[in-house]
């Protein structure tokens, strides 16, 4: 047990994962530099360059080769430097990684993890602030999880590595160093498919995941100051989704706001709203609101603050839901 940043927790998870001789890490610059975000820091020195492999700049190649390794019995963990650079590999993911089990009726499988640092808020260049989880959550055969705290980052990553199916693993860039917390030593698993009830409340449900948990809990804190009893859910696993937790919460509160930083149209919040509407319509006392990024390319540094949902945008959505 020790206090770590989210980045350190991931490093610790990878270190533990490498105890399994089937695990291989692959990615651009993950060796000597330890990756753009230093998540693999020191791992190549410790486990050797056959297990922690620096690759050419070729995302499709990285994912495709890792997929081949997985078929042949290894457990590759791929790092793509930023979610915005994962698109060249999209064909490999949707056409092969997600499908080899169904294509071969279980004879071949792709137990592999694709790590994608994601999200805006660090004033990065174009393509470095993407939050396109919706292009993965729609693909049958994939699991999609999103870390939000050091503790669940490590537990979810270790669970992803053990999972017999491919897992898209989203890491919130702006929480890498900002999020700090106690992290157990050694191996432990945070179950994939289980949401986390962060906070119990009875007036309204705030539902989010990943980097937006910070603004969400901040909004919850401030709303509590106004006397509102807020329930907060960190989904953690988008596919499979802990639908029962979401539905139970809204059945209790009758009001909800769903928050993510991806653009509104076709974002994952739409799925959550559709679910609530299907299973808890009669409990709803007001329309569920979505607080999301806008339907624009994420702005560069100087206008980025206009894009990301803020605690106050969440609060004002919550207030309007509470008032109806």
């Amino acid at each position: 047990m020790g206090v770590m940043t989210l980045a350190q927790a991931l490093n610790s998870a990878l270190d533990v994962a490498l105890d399994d001789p089937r695990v291989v890490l692959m990615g651009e610059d993950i060796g000597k530099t330890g990756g753009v975000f230093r998540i693999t820091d020191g791992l190549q020195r410790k486990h050797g360059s056959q297990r922690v492999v620096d690759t050419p700049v070729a995302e499709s190649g990285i994912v495709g080769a890792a997929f081949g390794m997985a078929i042949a019995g290894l457990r590759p963990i791929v790092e793509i430097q930023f979610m915005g650079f994962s698109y060249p590999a999209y064909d490999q993911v949707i056409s092969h990684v997600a499908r080899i089990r169904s294509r071969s009726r279980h004879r071949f499988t792709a137990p592999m993890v694709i790590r994608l640092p994601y999200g805006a808020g660090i004033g990065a260049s174009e393509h470095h602030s993407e939050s396109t989880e919706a292009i993965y959550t729609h693909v049958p055969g994939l699991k999609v999880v999103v870390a939000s705290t050091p503790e669940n980052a490590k537990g979810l990553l270790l669970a992803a590595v053990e999972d017999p199916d491919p897992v898209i693993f989203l890491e919130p860039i702006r929480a890498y160093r900002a999020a700090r917390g106690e992290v157990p030593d050694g191996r432990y698993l945070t179950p994939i498919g289980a949401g986390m009830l962060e906070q119990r409340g009875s007036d309204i449900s705030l539902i989010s995941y990943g980097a937006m948990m910070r603004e969400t809990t901040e909004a919850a804190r401030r709303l509590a100051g106004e006397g509102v009893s807020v329930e907060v859910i960190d989904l953690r696993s988008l596919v499979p989704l802990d639908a029962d937790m979401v539905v139970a919460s809204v059945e209790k509160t009758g009001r909800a706001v769903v928050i993510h930083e991806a653009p509104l149209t076709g974002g994952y919040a739409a799925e959550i709203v559709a679910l609530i509407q299907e299973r808890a319509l009669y409990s709803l006392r007001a329309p569920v609101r979505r607080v999301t990024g806008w339907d624009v390319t994420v702005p560069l540094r100087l206008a980025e603050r206009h894009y990301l949902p803020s605690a106050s945008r969440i609060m004002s959505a919550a207030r309007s839901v509470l008032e109806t």
Partner: protein
Amino acid sequence: MRLEPRQVLAADGTVIDRREPDVSIVAARYAAMTEARLYDRKASALQRQGRLATYAPYEGQEASQVGAVAPLAAEDWLVASYRDAAAMRFHGYPWKNLLLTRMGDERGGRPPEGVNATPPSITVGGHMIHAVGIAWAEKIKGTRAVALTMFGDGATSEGDFHEAMNFAGVYRTPTVFFCQNNGWAISMPRSRQTASRTIAQKAGAYGLPGVLVDGNDVLAVEEVVAEAVERARAGEGATLIEALTYRVRGHTTADDHQRYRAREEAAGWLGKDPLERVRLWLERLGAWDEALQSEIESEASRRIEAAVAEAEAVESLSAGEIFDAMYEDPTGPLVAQRRLAERSARWA
């Protein structure tokens, strides 16, 4: 790079410039190619009868397919495409499975345990890097297995070909890249696919050797593949082989090749038939006659017919079963959807 394709047997069945091959091996290859051709015809016929969905005939490419896999050991991997049924079959992937896939049953994609061949790739290009990853894994695991991947001339235009070749070069993976240049990618002639003179020369971009071979000469194909496999096993890395051959039929049973190519072109290639030259050689040695031919054919037909019967006896996936192979353990929504699907199926 040599621009003359490697040959052992000329089209007229004479041996080129080397010691005579081993009769029993040649006879075995002849039998395999004959079975391959019969399967191809059978599958095309089944398609016309509506018993298969579409089918991609490989007539004219039997030497490439049989020769490519002949040097492989059982533990070696084959990562092939939609047109490579014969290669797959002779690496142990049953005709039955190949038929099932073509009938439209996903269980075709599940070869028996121990057969190291992935289901045929339907997308063009994406599978070559899998053979790099598989070979790399075998290297990491310390086995001696290699991976051979088969693809067409058109596939070399995809970015994934490039990334696969480059990774193979950088990591010296034990991979054999086997390109069947059959002159066409659907309606696109090889000359318009790329401005490089040969496909083989593309290997130079990755520091890999490129080899040109007469793809209608089963012995030559077998020879160059055996060399590439040996190189790979010895830890010397990958090889790109370009087998020059010809797609005698349409791209698939749905394609009308007369829209885009002249009849005469095919005629020229028919004279280079991969079976005929072997037959001629065997005959000259007294190792072939009509009786033998009938025997080979009836043996092959028996196997093919048995496979057809077996495949057609399989009951198609039920509504519920389509949910069964998405994850090791079906997720909650899949369980619920399965129930709905089963209910609709009962009503329908």
